[in-house]
């Protein structure tokens, strides 16, 4: 094994088939307490037409088989608990265990959204305090905690803008979106009933303010901006941008996915942003869980407040908190019940642990990103050289010469014991290496990452093949994605897999 690979070794790792392949009639992993009422006969009471026979192919296994199955599967994953996760734009930071603990408390995890509000004051106080903390951090006037994730937050924000403009007589037609934006931005605009106008960044990767002046026509409803941009660069002229929009009656939406660069240092509200979402599963450390759940609260200025989704949290004169289900101008509900409460609990636990110290987290995040940038500048091409905030975006231009692209480098990182960085975007950087270390990485881990990246760059020059065929140390090698999409196999079926299991 390569001497240069300091962070990882290979070790024996259990194989495991699909749970359905372990099934055998009569095995079970769960028992219920005995029925303490007369057994009703479904055939009679329910009617034969409604009655279902046993579910064909449903698993029949024992408890130890279930525990081992998923434990073995888990050992095939990389995770924050195992090491650095430099995924740009994803803010994969430490997920404190105490947050898991409090979210599971009796009286927290056990509460029903329809229980009387006098028996829900604890839940409501949690929501209220989180609202207050997020408003203080963003510098906004009002907030909704309902959206389930960033994308839904984006939609909620655009619907707020739409409702506000409608109230003024004209919802307008277009939303401007920089070409550096995340894919959810344009996808969301469409759902909110807007046409997307993509705007080109200027040569430094910033919004072209001069061009913007012309682009903001009377049928532009809003500009969706990400700040810092997905290049990790702060949009310096954002106050000016806000003015331009406001002058034309349009509003400024900020994608807050990169708040980890700003929390405690500056506030979007002060910068002229009208509405924004936060990704609590990024900036506020709720675990990503292999793809959620998250939460995407939307913070807004006063003018948008009347349009907030219902239910809205209000403080009664009695001091009692209540969720109000109806408001005349509300855009309505974006999700059933009061948001991903369990996620909101974790985010508040995270904020309380830091208090005003969130600023220190932000500083360390920016420190790590700049430290990595400093050491990798020159080794990798840096297409946009303005100062980096919480992340830095390189390109594979130098390695391309040897036929090595960003995906190859990413896969080779796996052999070096790291999760790859983000390769999928920003689209304005062909062959992007989007690196966000977050504040959770020690200097030791950053140094190992830098060493790995340098070593791979060297391999790309001297031995490109080893990079292009990476990873070499994982239990499976590169997978056939084309084949997977051409002839999709999206579920297990009794016959097929039995035979597979056989061969």
């Amino acid at each position, binding site marked *: 094994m390569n001497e240069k690979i300091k962070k990882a070794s290979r070790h024996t790792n259990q194989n495991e088939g699909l749970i359905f392949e372990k099934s055998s009639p009569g095995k079970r992993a769960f028992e219920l307490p005995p029925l303490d009422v007369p057994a009703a006969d*479904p055939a009679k009471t329910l009617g034969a037409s409604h009655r279902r026979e046993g579910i064909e192919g449903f698993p029949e296994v024992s408890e130890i088989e279930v525990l081992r199955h998923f434990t073995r599967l888990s050992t095939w994953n990389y995770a924050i608990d195992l090491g650095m996760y430099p995924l740009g734009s994803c803010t994969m930071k430490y997920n404190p265990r105490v947050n898991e603990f409090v979210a599971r*408390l009796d009286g*927290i995890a056990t509460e029903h*959204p329809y229980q009387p509000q006098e028996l829900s004051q604890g839940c409501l106080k949690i929501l209220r305090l989180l609202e207050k903390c997020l408003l203080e*951090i963003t510098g906004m006037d009002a907030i909704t905690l309902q959206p389930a994730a960033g994308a839904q937050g984006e939609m909620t924000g655009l619907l707020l803008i739409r409702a506000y403009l409608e109230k003024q007589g004209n919802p307008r037609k277009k939303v401007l979106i920089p070409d550096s934006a995340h894919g959810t931005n344009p996808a969301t605009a469409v759902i909110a009933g807007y046409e997307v106008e993509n705007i080109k960044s200027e040569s430094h990767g910033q919004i072209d303010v001069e061009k913007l002046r012309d682009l903001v026509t009377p049928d532009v409803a809003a500009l969706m901006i990400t700040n810092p941009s997905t290049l990790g660069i702060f949009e310096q002229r954002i106050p000016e941008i806000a003015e331009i929009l406001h002058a034309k009656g349009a509003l400024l939406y900020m994608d807050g996915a990169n708040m980890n660069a700003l929390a405690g240092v500056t506030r979007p509200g002060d910068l002229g942003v009208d509405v924004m979402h936060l990704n609590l599963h990024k900036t506020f450390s709720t675990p990503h869980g292999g793809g959620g759940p998250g939460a995407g609260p939307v913070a807004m200025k006063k003018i948008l407040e009347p349009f907030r989704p219902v239910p809205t949290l209000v403080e009664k004169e009695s001091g009692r908190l209540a969720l109000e289900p109806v408001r005349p101008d509300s855009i309505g509900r974006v999700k*059933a019940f009061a948001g991903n409460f369990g996620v909101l609990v974790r985010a508040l636990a995270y904020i309380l642990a830091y208090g005003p110290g969130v600023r220190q987290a932000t500083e360390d995040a920016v420190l790590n990103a700049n430290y990595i940038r400093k050491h990798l500048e020159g080794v990798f091409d840096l297409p946009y050289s303005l100062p980096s905030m919480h992340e830095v975006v390189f390109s594979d231009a130098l390695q391309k010469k040897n036929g090595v692209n960003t995906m190859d480098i990413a896969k080779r990182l796996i052999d070096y014991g790291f999760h790859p960085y983000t390769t999928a975007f920003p689209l304005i950087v062909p062959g992007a290496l989007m690196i966000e270390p977050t504040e959770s990485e020690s200097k030791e881990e950053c140094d190992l990452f830098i060493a790995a990246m340098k070593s791979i760059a060297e391999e790309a020059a001297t031995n490109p093949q080893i990079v292009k065929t990476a990873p070499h140390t994982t239990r499976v*090698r590169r997978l056939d994605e084309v084949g997977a999409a051409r002839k999709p196999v999206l579920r297990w079926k009794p016959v097929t897999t039995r035979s597979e299991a056989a061969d």
Partner: protein
Amino acid sequence: MRYLPKSPAERKEMLGAIGAKSIDELFSSIPERFRLREALNIPGPYSEAEVIQYFKERAAENSNGYTSFLGAGVYNHLRSVVTDAIIQRGEFLTSYTPYQAEITQGTLQAIFEFQTLMCQLTGQEVANASMYDGSTAMTEAVLMAERLTGRRRVLVARSVHPEYREVLKTYAKNSGLHVEEIPFTASGAVDSKALQAALKDDVAAVVVQSPNFFGVIETHAALAEATHASGGMYVVTVAEGVSLGLVRPPAEADIVAMEGQSFGLPPSYGGPFAGVIASRDKFVRQMPGRLAGQTVDSEGQRGFVLTLATREQHIRREKATSNICTNQALCALAATVHLTLLGKEGLREMAEQNFSKAQFALSELLKIPGVKRTFDAPFFNEFVVELPRSVKLINAQLLRDKIIGPHALGTAYPELTKRALVCVTETTSRAEIERFAGALKRALEQPV
């Protein structure tokens, strides 16, 4: 700060390496006048013990110690500690969306198993990796039908969960969908005549929930047939998944939108849960959300990847089938573990216990003078009773007996004032049912 792995000396050293004099230098691109001078005004920092104490105090202000007869879309079911042990393994809990298949096979195979279980439950051919919840799953199912039919009228049964319908309306407003509601009959089921009347060749989807919001089990065959006759898609939403252990799956549906909360997820004041969309193979390319697919690696071994990504926002941007990105993966994993634990026998037995206990509860309540059954159609674990007085007032009295009474229907259904939706699951003991009946009887005996 305990979460930050740096000593003051290391920070200095790193700044030095960067060539910055101070940390502020790294924030120089933020215009001076916008940089915060004072510390944020938020509570903390709290030690771990203080964080726990804060939430224990809040928990004590909630409903601990009460017996609840609430369902209405969120159900109390037995959960195994095994599920929690699994989803708290860092390798699952703190892993990202499995875009890098070689080091996320665990999550990918689990999603593939989830998709399979959802197909088996719903009688559909394909299911996705999860949606935010049942309400958005139902909404996205309608949007999917819109894409598939190119039509814009949507008929939604009024017996669909009121909040699900509200969410649909929020999304519909700006996608130019016209949503109309189909009433329910005296038996509590969808009024098929009204549906027939409303069905024209401009209908994209007919949306029915079963068991519906009143707990009533809908009969799909006729409804689906009528829908298909008009060229529309028949969309079924399921809010109480445990029913599928006992009740025929909506095989006639073109799209099924299900809420997975009943599969091992705690009520958690309304979330996080896990929605899912299941449908026919032929419709898969219009499906929203992530899909895990089976494939082989360069050495021919079986493996799994996220696939058909050309439907998704990170590839297609404004042309994507949906804007969904982060979904509810860990909740879907919990459901996968939970259903695997239950297995064929366990799920059926759980469903049968719900059914029997609800039957028992109904018979106990009907013994009380003045209590009437509202709908006569078959139901699963929820049913509607009519009370001689305001449900809110009666529930207020029940609280004194540490009982959280049934959900009052009057707000969402003005025509159903004095009606209450009673939910009983396998977690409700006979003694609790009897205590509830006794307390209700006493409450009704009291002079107004």
